[in-house]
C-alpha cells in the first residue's frame, strides 16, 4: 500500500513538473468555467462558444503583444456540470494547478460568487455576466484587498437596464394602445435572478408613472393559467414577462389564450426565437434581449458577429445572445495587458481596465467599467407588428443617467 502511494505521489509530482516546464513562454492561459452539462447547459455553451470565437480571432490576428513578447491565448475550458461543488473544484484547478491569469464565467450568481472568493484571493481576474453581482460590488469589496477587486461585471447595472428597457417598452407600446398605459403587472420567476431583476424593474416602471403589481411564480412552474387568470383580474394595460426567457416562452402562449392583457412585454425573448416558434398575437408585443438581439438587430456589427458566431456551429437558442456578455471582454483584457506590458501584474491590469474604453460589438458606444467594475451599454427593445411573427420595429435605448427614486442602484 505504501509503495502504491509512493508511486502515485512521484508520478503525480513529475506530472505537475512537466506541465509547469512546458507551459512557460508566450502562452496566455485563460480559464472558462461554464456548464457543458446539466441544466444550465444552454447558457453555458454560449459562454464557451464566445470564448472560442474571441480567442481564435485574437490568435489568428497575431496574438497579444505584451512587453515585446507575443502571447497566444490558450483556453482551459472546464465543465461545471451545473454544480457549485464542481464549479469550485474547477476554479481551484484553474487558479492553483494550471495558473490561469483570468477566468470567464459562470452562468449564475451563486456560482460566480463562490468562484470570486477563490479568484479574489489568488489575484486572478474574473469576468462574470451576472447583473445581480451589483448587490455585492460596492466600494469596500472592489477596493484593493477587497474580495471582488479582481471581479468584473460584464452586464450593465440592473437599474440601468431596467430603466432603458422600461423606457423602450412604454415608448413602443403607447401609440398602439387606446389610452396611455397606466397599470403594469410584472410577472417574474421567484429565483435569485428574478428577485433581483424585478426589484429594479418595478422601480423603473413606477418612475415612469406606472402603477405596478408584482407577481412572482415558483421557478419550475409550467402551468401558468391560475396566476395568469389572477393577473387578468387585475386588468393591467401591459403584462411584463420578466426573467426568465424559457418560462416566458411557456407562459406567453397561455396568456394569449386567456386574453390576459391588451399588450405584452417579453424579456429575454429574441425576435429570432419569436419567429422560430411562430408566435403570433393580435395584441402588440414588445421584446428585449440579453444583451442584444441576434434576430432583427439594426446594427451591422452585431449582425456580423452573430453570423460568425453561428457559422462556428453554435445553436440558435433563446440564450445565444448571452455570448455577447463574454465576447468583447477578451479584446478588452488583451488591450489592458498590452497597456500594462505584463501578464502577471493583476493590480495594474485592474487599474488599466478601469481607466480604458473599448469599442466592442455589444454597444454602439465604447465600453467602460465604472468604479464598481460594472459595464454600461444600451438596450435594444423590439416591437412585433400585431398579427405577424417576423416583422419587428426596434429601438435602442440609452440607460438613464441615475437610478429612479427608491432604487439604491447597485
Amino acid at each position, binding site marked *: 500500500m505504501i509503495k502504491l502511494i509512493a508511486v502515485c505521489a512521484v508520478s503525480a509530482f513529475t506530472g505537475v513538473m512537466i506541465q509547469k516546464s512546458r507551459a512557460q513562454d508566450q502562452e496566455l492561459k485563460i480559464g472558462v468555467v461554464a456548464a457543458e452539462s446539466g441544466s444550465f447547459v444552454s447558457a453555458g455553451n454560449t459562454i464557451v462558444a464566445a470564448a472560442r470565437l474571441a480567442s481564435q480571432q485574437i490568435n489568428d490576428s497575431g496574438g497579444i503583444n505584451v512587453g515585446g513578447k507575443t502571447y497566444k491565448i490558450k483556453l482551459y475550458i472546464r465543465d461545471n456540470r451545473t454544480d457549485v461543488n464542481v464549479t469550485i473544484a474547477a476554479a481551484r484547478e484553474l487558479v492553483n494547478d494550471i495558473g490561469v491569469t483570468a477566468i470567464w464565467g459562470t452562468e449564475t450568481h451563486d456560482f460566480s460568487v463562490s468562484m470570486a472568493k477563490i479568484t479574489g484571493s489568488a489575484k486572478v481576474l474574473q469576468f462574470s455576466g451576472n447583473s445581480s453581482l451589483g448587490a455585492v460590488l460596492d466600494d469596500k469589496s472592489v477596493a484593493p484587498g477587497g474580495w471582488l477587486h479582481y471581479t468584473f461585471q460584464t452586464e450593465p447595472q440592473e437599474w440601468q437596464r431596467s430603466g432603458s428597457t422600461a423606457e423602450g417598452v412604454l415608448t413602443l407600446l403607447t401609440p398602439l394602445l387606446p389610452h396611455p398605459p397606466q397599470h403594469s403587472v410584472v410577472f417574474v420567476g421567484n429565483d435569485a435572478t428574478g428577485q433581483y431583476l424585478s426589484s429594479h424593474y418595478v422601480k423603473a416602471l413606477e418612475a415612469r408613472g406606472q402603477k405596478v403589481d408584482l407577481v412572482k*411564480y*415558483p421557478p419550475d412552474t*409550467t402551468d401558468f393559467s391560475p396566476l395568469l387568470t*389572477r393577473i387578468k383580474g387585475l386588468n393591467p394595460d401591459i403584462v411584463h414577462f420578466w426573467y426568465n426567457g424559457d418560462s416566458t416562452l411557456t407562459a406567453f402562449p397561455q396568456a394569449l389564450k386567456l*386574453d390576459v392583457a391588451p399588450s405584452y412585454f417579453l424579456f429575454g425573448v429574441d425576435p429570432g426565437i419569436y419567429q422560430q416558434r411562430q408566435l403570433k398575437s393580435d395584441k402588440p408585443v414588445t421584446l428585449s434581449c440579453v444583451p442584444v438581439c441576434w434576430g432583427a438587430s439594426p446594427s451591422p456589427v452585431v449582425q456580423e458577429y452573430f453570423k460568425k458566431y453561428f457559422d462556428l456551429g453554435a445553436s440558435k437558442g433563446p440564450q445565444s445572445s448571452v455570448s455577447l456578455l463574454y465576447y468583447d471582454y477578451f479584446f478588452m483584457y488583451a488591450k489592458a495587458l498590452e497597456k500594462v506590458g505584463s501578464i502577471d501584474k493583476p493590480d495594474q491590469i485592474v487599474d488599466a481596465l478601469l481607466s480604458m474604453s473599448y469599442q466592442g460589438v455589444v454597444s454602439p458606444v465604447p465600453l467602460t467599467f465604472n468604479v464598481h467594475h460594472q459595464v454600461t451599454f444600451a438596450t435594444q427593445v423590439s416591437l412585433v407588428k400585431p398579427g405577424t411573427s417576423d416583422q419587428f420595429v426596434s429601438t435602442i435605448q440609452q440607460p438613464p443617467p441615475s437610478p429612479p427614486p427608491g432604487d439604491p442602484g447597485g
Partner: protein
Amino acid sequence: MEIFFQQLVNSLSVASVTILIGMGITLIFGLAGIVNFAHGEFLMVGGMATWFLVSAGINFFIAVLGAMILVGFLGFVAERGLFRFTLERPMNGFIMSIGLSVILQHVVIRLFNEVQKTIPDPIGQVWVVHGVDIIVMRAIVIAITAIVVAITYFCISRSRYGLALTASIADPDTAALMGIPVRRYVTGVFIYGSVLAGLGGALMIALFPITPFTGSVVIIRGFAVSLIGGLGNVGGAVVGGLLLGLVDGLSAGYGFPEWTDAYSLVLMIAILIVRPQGLLGGTLGPKAS
C-alpha cells in the same frame, strides 16, 4: 366572479392529471404495497412519448394511445423485472423505485435533452361562456378524466374482477386462499396504473410543457392525493385530487403567489399527520406503532 369561475376551471384541469396519477398510485400501493417513486417518471415518459409521436407528424389522439401502450409496457417490465422481487420488503421496492426514477429521468435527457417539450395545441379553441374563458383542450382533459374515473369505479365496484380485486386489497392472504390469483392481479393493476400515468402524461403535455424533471414534482402530488384519500380507495384519490387541485388553483389565484407550492405541501403534511389512514379511509398504511 368570472375570474373565480375561471380559476375553478383551471383547477379542475390540473386536478384531472393529479387524479389520474393518484388513482394509479393508490391501486398499486393498496394492492401490492409497492410505493413506486418512479410513477411520476412514468407520467413524464408518457408525455415525452406523446411529444415524440406528435413531432413525427402523428395525430395527437393516436399519440395518446401510443403513450398509454408504451407506459403500460414499461409498467409490465418494471413489475415483472423489479418489483416482483421486493413484494415482501416494500422498503427495498421503494429504494429501487428511486433508482428507476433516476434512470428514466436521465435516459430521457440522454435521448432528447433537458429542455422542456411542448406540442402544438391539439385543439386550440377557446370557448367564452358568460365571460369565462374555457380552453377547450382543458375541458376535454376534464372529460376524459371523468370518463376514466367512472370506468375504473364501475369496474372495481361492479364487475367480478373488481370485487376480487377489492378483496385482494383488503386482505391479500385470505384472497389468495380463496383462489384469487393475487400475483397476477398485482401485475394487472401495475399495468393499469402505468397506463393511467401514460394517459396523464399525454394529457398534461397537451396543456402545458413538460421537462424530464416533471415526474418528480408530479409524484409527490400523486402520493399526497392517494394518501389523503386513503390507500386503495379510488374515490379517495378523486376527492384528494380535487382538494389538492382546488388548493393549488385558489392559492395561485388568491394567496401569495410566491408561496403557491407551499400551501399544498402544508396541507399534505397536515392531513398525513392528522389522518394517516386518509380522509375516506382505505387499507391501513404502515402505521408506526
